[in-house]
Every structure is written in C-alpha cells, then in structure tokens.
C-alpha cells in the first residue's frame, strides 16, 4: 500500500515535468499546476515514508521496464521510508515556496520557467526513485537522473559565468561519483548473483574485496554528499541555483547520498570492518571542521550556507563512522545510538538547511544581492523571514531546545562510549573527533552570529536593503512550517528516536538500549543513569524562568517607560552603517587564529590622491588549489602532449600504421 502511494508520488513528479513541457506557453498556469503536483507528490511521499517507517514492513514491486533480464525493482522499507519522508517534507515546503520565488522569472521571461519546473520535477522524481529502487541498474538511472536534472537547475541562469562553471564542475564530479558507485555495485554484483539488492546482499566477499567495494562506495557517495576533500562542487553549485533548488539540493539531495551510503554499507555490503569506520569518522570530522572554517570566511550568504552543508554532512559522517566502529567491534547498542544520531541529523539538517536557504532566497529576492556586506537591518523590513531565519540559525548551531542539538547530543553520547572499546587507538581517535565536533559547534555559533548579525541586525548597508519588504505569503508559509518543525523535532526527540530505532534494529540487529526507559519527557539513549536530555522539560524550564523574570520585572516596566534614543556614537557624529562590523571584520580574529586553514591573500592599496585606501581580501580553498587545479593542469598538459599524435603530416600517420602492423606481426609471430 505504502509503496503504491510512493509510486504515485513519483508519477506526480513526472506529471509535473510533463505539465511544464505541455503548458510551456502559459507560464503562470503551468507554474501553479506544476508546483501543485509537486506538493501532492511530497504529501504522498511523506505519507508513504512515514507509514513504512512506523509499520516497519517491506514492500516490493517489480516493474516491467528496464533490461529484459533485470526488471526495475522498487521497494520500500524503514530506511527508504525515512528518507522518502524527509525528501517529501522538503518538497512540500519547496512547492509552497517555489511559485512565488520564481515569479520574477515568469515576469521577465529571460529564462523560460518551463525549464526550471521541468527539471525540478525530474530532480525530485530522481530522488524518490533512488530511495525506492532495489537494484543497481535502476538505482544508477535514478541517481544520474537526479544529478543531470540538478545540473540543469544549477545552470538555469546560464547567462552568468559563475553559474556555468559551477554547473560544469558539479556535473563533472557527479559523473566521477556515479562511476565510483557503479564500480562499487559492480564489485558486489560480481561476487553476488545479479544486480538486484537482494542478490547483492547475499554476496560473499573476502575482506579485501569488501574493502575495495567499501572504498568505491565511500568515494562515490562522498562525492555527492560533499565531504572534504570531495566537496569542491558544493560551494560552487548551491549558491547559484534558484533558492528553492538550493534548499532541496542542500537539504535533501545530500541526504539521498547518505542514504545510498547507508544502504550500500549496512544493507548490501554488511560485515563492517572497524577500519572503515575510522576512515568515515576522520573524514567526517575533517569535513565538519573544514566546512565551518570555510563558511566563516564567506561573504556570499548562500555560499556560506553551502559550506555549512559540508560541515553538517561531516557531522552525519561522524555519526556513521562511530556507528560503524561500534558495530564492527561488537557493540551494536552503541552503534545504534550513533546510527540514529546520524539519521536524526539527516532529518534535522534537511529541515534547518532548507529553512535557511528559503530565508536566504527571500533576502535575495528582495535585495537582489548575494553579498552579506551589503545587507543589514532586515529584521525590521522582513520580520517573519527574520524570525524563521533565527530559528534556523539556532537549530544549525545545535543549541537547545531545537532539533540540531538533539542529533549532535546523540553523536556525543555515542562518542563518549569509546571506553567500551577498552583503550587502543580507537579509544583515542573517537574522543578527539568528538573534540573536533565540539570545536565545529562553537565555530558554527560564531559563524551564525556573524550571518544573523550582519544580515538581519544593525543598519542597512545599501539602498536595495532599505527598500526591502516582507516576502509574499507563499514564501512565508514554507519558512514558518519548517521553523515550527525545527522546534517540533527538537522537542519530540524521544518519539523520533524511537521511530528511527527500527533502522538499527534491522541492520545491526539491536536498537538503542536506553530507549525503553525513555519517556516523552526525556530521552536516554544508553541508560537513564548515563545520560539523558529532556527537551520538553528544557523548554518548560526556559519558559518558566522567562515568565518569572518577566513577571518580576513587569512592575518596574510599568513604573518607568522605556526611552528611545540614538545609540552612543563616541562623540564622533552620527552613526553610519559603514562603521558596523562586516563579515570580514567579524571573522578577523578567527582568521588570525586559524590562518593555516585557508589560502588568504590580503591586499591593501595605499591611498591615492583621488580615492582612499582600498583593502581587499580573498580567501581560497586550499583543497581546490592543491588537489583539483593540478589535475586540470595535468590533463591539459597531457592533452597538449597527446595532440602531437595528430600532427598533421600524412607520412607520419602512415608511419603509425606501418609500425603498428610490424609490431603486431612481431607480437603474433
């Protein structure tokens, strides 16, 4: 039943693409209809996903398409169901947000909106199908469909050079990633009997081949998930896509990659080795730290958010790595905590990152700027957006009682069980990664103070900002819904963790030990005595203390009224917006402290007679400079050398033929 509904969801997305094609001439109607279908598909996906997760049943269907001897198999179990629900949720939000957001494109007609809606439909259906497919062939088709469709979305506003280059890098890395995944499946299929997941799961691999398969999958899915050092496409591609697409790419497409990784490693490959876990853990920790450090240096709002996706994916990978280590060393209950933490963080990141991208989109739509240093004071112009964005910031910074905290807390809890491993190198690595995670969290706070302070607080720094207004209703709704969900999933931590617990039960054979003793009020993943966190209680406590403080101070408030005055200007005359801290000045102390992490080029041009001194700052990604550009150079150089084959001289060409013949004759004889 739930699978049927899920298929309907896929159908609805395809229909929405079709609508875009058929009604391309009437953009207004088309946009409405297409997003309506998209929203409907989201509802169907959430319904089927949640049903599958809660009922914990496996549904399977074989469709009569695909290769003759390998028909497309779709299935829906708890894991797919969970991710399906996440994708569906964000799709619903995006379908509220999208129509109003792309109004501008409908009006100016510069870029046909049909392109956008057509590929959005395909993109979403690709994601659904990745989650539903149960054989390598249809998985790969769906996977690449997702990649290609999102490529077109990234390249949508193709008159800008950065969109084009971002789209190119994105697609290239998607291709490479797809190739690795294909290889991974190929190894499994080589040992198993065929390409269906069921056959692959039965494959018996020796440990070398299992490790090879694991590494292939790790790189392949890691490229899409954007873990360091495979992340370089992400901060390029996400900022340039339309915002609801950025939200979906950052919020859910990366999760689909995580899904693929979990499916591959836990379900298909099995027999997890602890070394894999260490790799995942270290890469995760490194991603988290690098992601947030790079985010701190950005002044393009969406680019900053994109780097935070790297960070959050790193956190998810930390969870996965921990769970793999514990699973491999025979502690399934702790592994379950870590896995639930990772899954929970997937959900949370989807919610708050989409929320933040929606907020960023709203700001962009009003201000037509990407540069935060031109913004400021938007909280007064756009109160709803500002409030929702604040919720997003608090959530992503993992502050209680919002959702981001729960998953990070669970990750910490799992990490702190390292003593169960009885020393050894693992026991040392895990707490250190936990410390890296702590550092990440603290830096994230710094980063979002910067973002919120520069964008929404203070004084407007440019004219467009002064003219900004609150965004239309549709865009508000999606933000408010997501903000409420951020709080909701922060409070319903026990419920969510219990629901997610079936996934480790299925793959690891055991769930979280403490879940039985948890109540709706507090969540105790391992045991009540070890650790517990009561999100609802925290909220109640907070409300209580606020009320008390407010009530106590209220009489005072009535007796003397607040006086509004201009802020203190140190006696230098009126305050100007230029006096405010900008993103670069805010991050300057951190830039000094962690100067090794970036390739920073600062340049100060001395004052000229006609203009004042000029300061420019450029922060580049080391990994891009050191790992990717050299590859491009090598290919270029190789191509230059290889080009000599085609030198233009006929006699040389004939020489090739001649000597090839002689050589082959020699070989054969």
């Amino acid at each position: 039943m739930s699978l049927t509904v899920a298929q309907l969801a896929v159908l609805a997305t395809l229909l929405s693409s079709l609508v875009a094609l058929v009604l391309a001439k009437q953009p207004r109607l088309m946009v409405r209809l297409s997003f309506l279908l998209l929203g409907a598909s989201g509802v169907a996906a959430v319904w089927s996903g949640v049903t599958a997760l809660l009922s914990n049943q496996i549904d399977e269907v074989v469709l009569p398409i695909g290769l003759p001897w390998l028909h497309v198999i779709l299935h829906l179990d708890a894991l797919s169901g969970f991710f399906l629900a996440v994708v569906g949720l964000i799709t619903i939000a995006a379908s509220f947000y999208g129509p109003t957001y792309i109004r501008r494109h409908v009006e100016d007609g510069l870029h046909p909106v049909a392109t956008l809606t057509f590929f959005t439909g395909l993109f979403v259906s690709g994601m659904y199908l990745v989650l539903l497919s149960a054989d390598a062939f249809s998985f790969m088709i769906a996977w690449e469909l997702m990649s290609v469709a999102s490529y077109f979305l990234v390249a949508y506003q193709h008159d800008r050079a950065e969109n084009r280059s971002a789209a190119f890098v994105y697609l290239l890395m998607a291709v490479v990633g797809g190739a690795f995944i294909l290889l991974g499946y190929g190894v499994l299929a080589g040992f198993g009997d065929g390409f269906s997941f069921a056959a692959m799961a039965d494959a018996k691999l020796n440990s070398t081949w299992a490790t090879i398969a694991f590494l292939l999958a790790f790189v392949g899915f890691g490229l899409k998930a954007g873990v360091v050092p495979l992340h370089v496409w992400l901060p390029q591609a996400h900022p340039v896509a339309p915002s609801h697409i950025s939200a979906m790419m950052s919020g859910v497409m990366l999760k689909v990659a995580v899904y693929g990784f979990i499916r591959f490693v836990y379900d298909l490959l099995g027999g997890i080795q602890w070394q894999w876990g260490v790799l995942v853990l270290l890469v995760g920790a490194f991603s988290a730290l690098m992601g947030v450090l790079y985010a701190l240096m950005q002044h393009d709002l969406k680019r900053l958010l994109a780097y935070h996706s790297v960070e959050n994916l790193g956190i998810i990978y930390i969870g996965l790595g921990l769970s793999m280590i514990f699973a491999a060393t025979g502690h399934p209950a702790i592994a379950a905590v870590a896995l639930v933490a990772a899954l929970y963080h997937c959900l949370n990141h989807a919610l708050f990152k989409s929320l933040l991208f929606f907020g960023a989109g709203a700001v962009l739509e009003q201000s037509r700027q990407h540069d935060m240093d031109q913004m400021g004071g938007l909280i007064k112009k756009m109160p709803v957006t500002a409030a929702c964005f604040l919720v997003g910031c608090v959530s992503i910074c993992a502050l209680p009682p919002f959702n981001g905290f729960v998953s990070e807390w669970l990750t910490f809890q799992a990490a702190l069980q390292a003593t169960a491993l009885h020393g050894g190198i693992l026991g040392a690595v895990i707490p250190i990664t936990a410390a890296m995670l702590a550092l990440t969290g603290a830096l994230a706070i710094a980063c979002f103070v910067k973002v919120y302070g520069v964008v929404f607080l203070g004084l407007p720094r440019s004219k467009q900002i002064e003219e900004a207004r609150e965004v239309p209703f549709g865009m508000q709704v999606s933000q408010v819904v997501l903000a409420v969900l951020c709080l909701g999933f922060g409070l319903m931590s026990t419920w969510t963790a219990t629901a997610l617990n079936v996934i480790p039960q299925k793959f690891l054979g055991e769930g979280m030990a403490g879940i039985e003793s948890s109540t709706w009020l507090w969540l105790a993943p391992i045991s009540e005595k070890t650790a517990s966190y009561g999100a609802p209680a925290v909220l109640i406590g907070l409300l209580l203390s606020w009320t008390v403080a407010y009530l106590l101070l209220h009489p005072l408030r009535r007796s003397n009224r607040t006086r509004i005055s201009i802020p203190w200007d140190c006696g230098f005359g009126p305050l100007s917006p230029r006096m405010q801290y900008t993103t670069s000045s805010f991050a300057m102390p951190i830039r000094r402290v962690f100067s090794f992490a970036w390739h920073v080029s600062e340049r100060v041009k001395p004052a000229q007679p006609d203009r004042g001194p000029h300061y420019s700052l450029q922060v580049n990604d080391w990994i891009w400079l050191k790992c990717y550009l050299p590859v491009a150079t090598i290919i270029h150089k190789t191509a230059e050398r290889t080009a000599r084959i085609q030198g233009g001289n006929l006699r040389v060409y004939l020489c090739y033929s001649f000597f090839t013949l002689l050589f082959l004759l020699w070989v054969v004889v």
Partner: protein
Amino acid sequence: MTGWILALVQTLFVVLFAPFLVGWVKWVKCKLQNRQGPAPWQPYRDLLRLSRKQVVLANTASPIFRAAPYVVFGVTVLAASVLPTISTQLPTSSLADVIVLVGFFALARFFLALAGMDVGTAFGGMGSSREVTISSLAEPAMLMTFFTLSMYVSSTNLSSAVAFLSAAHFTLAPSLIFSFMALILVAVAETGRIPIDNPATHLELTMIHEAMILEYSGRHLLLIEWASMLKLTLYSILIVNLIVPWGVSLTLDPHDMAFAALTVLGKVMVLGLLLAIAETVQAKMRLFRAPQYLGVAFILALLGMMSHIILEVQ
C-alpha cells in the same frame, strides 16, 4: 514532588547567592590591593539600583535586543537548576547533562552576541566578534574536559558524576588532574575574568563582554549582569563540586542538604579567594595572546583525555 520543590529551592539559592560571590571576589581583591573596597553585598545594591533605572533603548534596536536579556537570564537560571549544587538526587539533573549545560551557555552567548550586533555600532560588533572567537576556542577544551570526566565516571550526567566521585576512594587520576586544570583555565576565560577579559574596565581596545552590552541599561542590564554573575557562580560550583565532591548530599534528606549548602558556600568562597589572588598577581593579556592561553587549556584537556585512555583504561 518534594524533589522538584527542593530543586527549585536549590536554584533560588544559587541565583540569590551569585551576586554575593562577585561582591566577595571584589572585596578580597580590594583588600589584597590595599584599597578601601565596597562591601561584599554591594552587587545586590547595584542590581536594585539598575532595576529602578529607566531603560534607554537605541532607536536602531530590534526585538532581538529586547529579548536577549530574558533569554540569557532564563537560560542561565535553567543551567543553575540542573547543577548538582547541594544534592545529587534532584530530578532536574536528568533534564540535562553536561553537554546540554554547555549548550545552555552557548545559547546564552549566541543571543548576547546577536544583541551586540543589533544596534549597529562598532563596539557591539567588536565585542561579539571577540566573544565568539574566545568561546569557540574555549568551548572545545571545556567539552573535552567533560568528555574525560564522563568517560572516567561513565556518565555525562553531572549528578551521577558527582555521586561517583564522592563515593569513590581517593584516587590520584592524572586524567582528572589535567582536566581540572584545563577546566579552571577555561572557566576563567568563559566567565570573562583576567587575564582574558576585565569586567571592571570599559577600555575599548581590550573589552569583550562589556563591549557587547554597552548599549544596555536599566532592567535589561540588570538581567545581563545578574546572568553573568550567575555564570561565574555556576562555574565555581562546578569546579568545586567536581574537584572536592565532599559534602554534596547524596540523598534528599533536609539535614544533609542544609549541611551541603553550607559546605558548598564555603568551598565556593575559598575558590573566590583564590580567584581574587590570581587576578591580583597577573595582568590582562592582549587579545591575540588569548588563543595561546586557550591552547594551553586545550592541550591540558587533551593530555587529560590521553592519559585516561592510555594510563587508566585497562
């Protein structure tokens, strides 16, 4: 139910005690510096005076600016309620463990830093920027000490930890020694004391915390000041109850708890004395030396963790 009431009482006790601790430190410092200082209860008077003052609000301030003091104060009070100050048996302790506690402080700091950015002056931004820089270095070190601790006692629950430590025989654990040293260093930085910050000055080149709250006045300032006093107290209680868990009641027995309250009071005042001495004998650091200071804390915390794993786990 008694548990909840006792928890409330304990919270009230800590909240009301906080200004006294700050006054006590100041008083001792003055005595040490041969100055005629204010009485230890001077902070109460200050708070009272602030409550009567009119609030002067910048015309550029947003609702964040008004909400921040309440958030900061409320969160800090909540943090006070989860600490096992007097008894380890209070039901509030399972509300939040040590990681949540750190989260509480982070939440307070987040809003305070936002408030600093809100008005749109250079000082606010400067203070926020410095505050988040310092804390982003301090927080991991602090969490790491807590990690070591929680691995040592196999729980992140503070009450369990204190109960475990006070029940245990005297053990000379190198991990704990390093960790506590780190914790003290971090606590100094987090509460804005010398050598990281000086709560007594408003010198723009050096101030951190004061720069952020420069625009606050009246009852808003009251809440923020009180919250920062409370923060100092909480760190002090945390330190003394972890290092010297002796005296903390392991039951909900009123006698035990009264005794515990007195011992905690005494221990914290001794710690205040030490703090005053430390602040007297050293000068404030330049801002960019602070990372080195915190680096030392981090290394200590790391050493603590390492020695736990290498030396203490068999």
